[in-house]
């Protein structure tokens, strides 16, 4: 494991060490993310994009220029993100913006992009509104949305015999969006299910004993979980102790990502049906290539954040190469319909709604040697989990599709 100090040093040098005199010649990309509030995801994410930038620069840069990324910490606050976006665009003269983790921050930057006519490639925010209800022609999104990941999980959830479902989700855009999609999709497949309890803890403030007691009180046959970060371990340990898990089957968004399994260790709840990233078991050549490069560079294994950071920036680089320019309109034209390679295999940015077709791995949680891992997994390609075009068109503003 690379120590944290090395990482900080590394990122510091990457931020500070701008080649002297090369400023005019570099191709600048602005990057904003919640480094101080969601470090377990965003620090591997930063290592991922730094690897992509180093590879691009080692290969001679883009359009004959070195790539330089100016990175900022939004501290998880949408208003700070807006100010930093202004600073990056008007002071640092970046060609485009990328990044963000939290859905509300992502939406705020997307709105900024629309207002200021700057391209924005959202890396992680998962809310459906990013590309649909509040989508705009300047905003693209890499990761599979809450709709797509819910659709992947609903396939499995519909096979569970139970009819009484309970829900626990963080009370903000991401949680609300995931629950809305999950409910609609599950109801469509299984009209007989009913939702008997909903717990909406504020993000990061889940009070485990009371929440788990309340879930038990509803006597559900199955639970859909959307909590993550600091809330998830509390929920899991309390649920394990109180006999809620593994008695009641759980379908859970994102919990198979190494970021969260790293924390759970021997508390990992076996049998949860999750989306995630079984990094230790994927044998495709694309993944092996990425894995080896990453391990060689950092002496650490990649997390999902690493894949997201790496893929976001390789997609941006491909778009710039295709556009042969950093003109916003030309880059948008290039990114629409662009097929690019990711460690998970090829993916395409759909011209219709700017959503990439990058998928996720669906499987079950298990433990091996006191650590969490995924078993019985498969890769769910994002293109198979998107609604019909007509439905997308009805949810996306007409302006965004011009």
């Amino acid at each position, binding site marked *: 494991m690379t120590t*944290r100090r090395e990482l*900080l040093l590394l990122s*510091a040098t990457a931020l500070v060490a701008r080649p002297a005199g090369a400023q005019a010649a570099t191709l600048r990309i602005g990057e904003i993310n919640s480094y*101080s*509030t969601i*470090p*377990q995801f965003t*620090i591997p994410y930063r290592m991922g994009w730094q690897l992509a930038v180093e590879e691009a620069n080692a290969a001679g840069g883009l359009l004959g220029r070195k790539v330089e990324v100016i990175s900022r*910490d939004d*501290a998880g*606050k*949408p*208003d*700070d993100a*807006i*100010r930093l976006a*202004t*600073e990056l665009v*008007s*002071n640092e003269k970046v060609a485009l913006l990328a990044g963000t983790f939290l*859905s*509300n921050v992502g*939406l*705020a930057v997307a*709105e*900024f992009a629309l*207002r200021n006519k700057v391209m924005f490639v959202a890396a992680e925010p998962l809310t459906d509104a990013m590309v649909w209800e509040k989508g705009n022609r300047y905003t693209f999104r890499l990761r599979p949305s809450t709709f797509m990941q819910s659709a992947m999980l609903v396939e499995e959830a519909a096979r569970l015999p139970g009819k009484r479902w309970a829900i626990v989700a963080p*009370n*903000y*855009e991401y949680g*609300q969006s995931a629950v809305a999609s999950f409910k609609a999709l599950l109801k469509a497949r299984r009209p007989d299910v009913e939702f008997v309890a*909903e*717990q*909406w*803890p*504020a993000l*990061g*403030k889940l*009070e*485990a*004993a*009371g*929440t788990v*007691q*309340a879930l*038990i*009180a509803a006597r559900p046959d199955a639970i859909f979980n959307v909590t993550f*970060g*600091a809330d998830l*371990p*509390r929920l899991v*340990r309390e649920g394990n*102790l*109180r*006999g809620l898990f593994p008695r009641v089957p759980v379908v859970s968004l994102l919990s198979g990502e190494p970021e969260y399994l790293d*924390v*759970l*260790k*021997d*508390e990992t709840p076996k049998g949860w049906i999750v989306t995630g990233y079984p990094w230790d078991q994927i044998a495709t050549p694309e993944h092996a290539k990425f894995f080896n490069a990453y391990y060689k560079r950092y002496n650490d294994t990649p997390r999902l954040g690493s894949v997201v950071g790496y893929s976001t920036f390789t997609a941006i680089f491909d778009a710039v190469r295709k556009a042969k320019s950093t003109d916003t309109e030309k880059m948008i034209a290039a990114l629409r319909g662009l097929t690019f390679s990711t460690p998970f295999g090829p993916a395409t940015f759909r011209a219709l709604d700017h959503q990439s077709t990058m998928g996720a791995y669906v499987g079950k949680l298990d433990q091996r040697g006191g650590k969490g891992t995924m078993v019985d997994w498969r890769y769910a390609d994002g293109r198979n989990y998107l609604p019909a075009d007509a439905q997308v068109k009805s949810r996306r503003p007409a302006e965004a599709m011009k």
Partner: protein
Amino acid sequence: MDLILGQFLAGLSFGSTLFLVSAGLTLIFGVTRVVNFAHGALYMLGAYFALTFTTALPTTPLGFFGGVLLAAMVVGAAGVIVEFIVLRRIYSAPEIFQLLATFGVALIIQDLVLAVWGPEEQFAPRAPGLKGAIQIGTAFVPEYNLLMTVVGPLMFGALWWLFHRTRWGTIVRAATQDREMASALGVNERLLFTSVFALGAALAGLAGALQIPRETVNLQMDLTILVEAFVVVVVGGLGSITGAFWASLVIGVLHAFGIWLLPQSTLVLVFVVMAAVLIVRPYGLLGRPEVATHVAGGLTQPPFRVATVRERVLAGTLIAAVAVLPLLLGDYALVIATEMAILALFAASLQFFMGHGGLVSFGHAAYFGLGAYAAALVAKSIGAPLAVALVAAPLAAALAALVASFFVLRAHGVYASMLTLAFAQILWSIAVQWVDVTGGDNGILGVWPPTASRLAYYLLTLGTVAASLLLLRRAALAPFGYALRASRDAPERAEALGIDVRRVRWTAFVAGAAFAGLAGALQAFQKGAVFPNALSIPISVDGLVMVLLGGLQTLSGPIVGAVAYHGLSTELIRHTEYWRALLGVVIVLLVIVFPQGIVGFVRARASRSR
């Protein structure tokens, strides 16, 4: 039945934790009159130390609880260091300075923890010997939770014994009742304060250390617990350990049932309880009216005076220069300059009733945020033009202040301040949870001024702010301002002179809120968006820091403070990883070295050299 019992036990174990944290807080306040904002940070420190110690020690019950106690003692020692370096120097300063100093200390501790333990959250293993659960009826209750439910009452018993059966405890109680009398009778105040602070810090550390088998240890845990602990202390009555005990249990249990029966209520429940208790009992469950403590000298201010012609010309030139300056700078500088102007108005509106009226508000963000939301809502929902929004915002804020003043102005001192905080927190949780109207955490986006030119908007802001500041200044120099300051310094005398003290204070409070609302509206259009952050505690604290940085008892202080603070914080965030610690150091130095603020300092130097 089992379910009710299970929920009840969950509430008791939460209440136990709350009690451990708030016992230390109330103890420290009772004796030293310091509202310790660093208490949450000490709690967090306890958790991190416990994590390190229990990992290093053998995983036996003895190793685990040994590690926990060791962590509590280390945090107690950290408390001694804080008391020795910072608090000792400012006991005689107004309580707002102590509060800010401890806030600075909290920022420093946060970054120290970040530097030592790293940003990743950590999850300790289950407590050795207490890994299982006990079946009660059909419900399972974790053994560790049962332990936690008894730790609170046990600690309460131990503290009761300490305060009623030992000499030290008797002295502490005496000092809580009347600090000056205790001192006059020969009690060594310094030693007493240091030992009390150490005990309080150790209790916070213990609470944090005991949480590690139940919680992930992370950098956000300090603020989460701090606000709840404050509520407990106020509900129980400041300085009363018994009050804190009962308040913790009541709030813990209500919280658990709130989660079960009304899951959306949890963010706001504790504040509603606090407001309800304070309406019935203005000093909390078991609190007593504060003994009026004589504040040591240095606070009498020279009277304000009207600006000379030369000063007016200077101010006019300055405004003109500020209006022209951004023409030379880029777009981003314009954004920062606009924000500075807005914050100057926000700080001045706070200073208006805090500096002149003596009411310290911990929740001034309520009116700032409300103004922002009101402006955004009228602009978005009925498409009202900018001018209408700029009128609607201060009206909405003033209306809210009218409601709040009914509660706040009846209370005194720290109780009044806590009520302002409660009011802001209630508005904040409404903004977060009433998704249909406020958009929840997404906020309201797309609130743009009619002009896309940042320069035009800057000039509009500058004009509005300058006019408002002149108005506030005029009011402070008018008979109204004199009446307000008289009501602050000697309410009885003011009353005897025929000043309607209540009405004067009330007017100042509502006017301050209205100007804060105006600042909020300007901010909404500047960002093009409003988010619940606008109502949050950090905004209120920013306001306090800006006012004190500039100088509490000066008229131009808020402007200087806002410019200096905003410039400093935005630059620090951009260029350093450890900006919190730097900011903390600046605040602590400010309080210790420049208690009169930048403007006060400059003025003192100028009058000395004259």
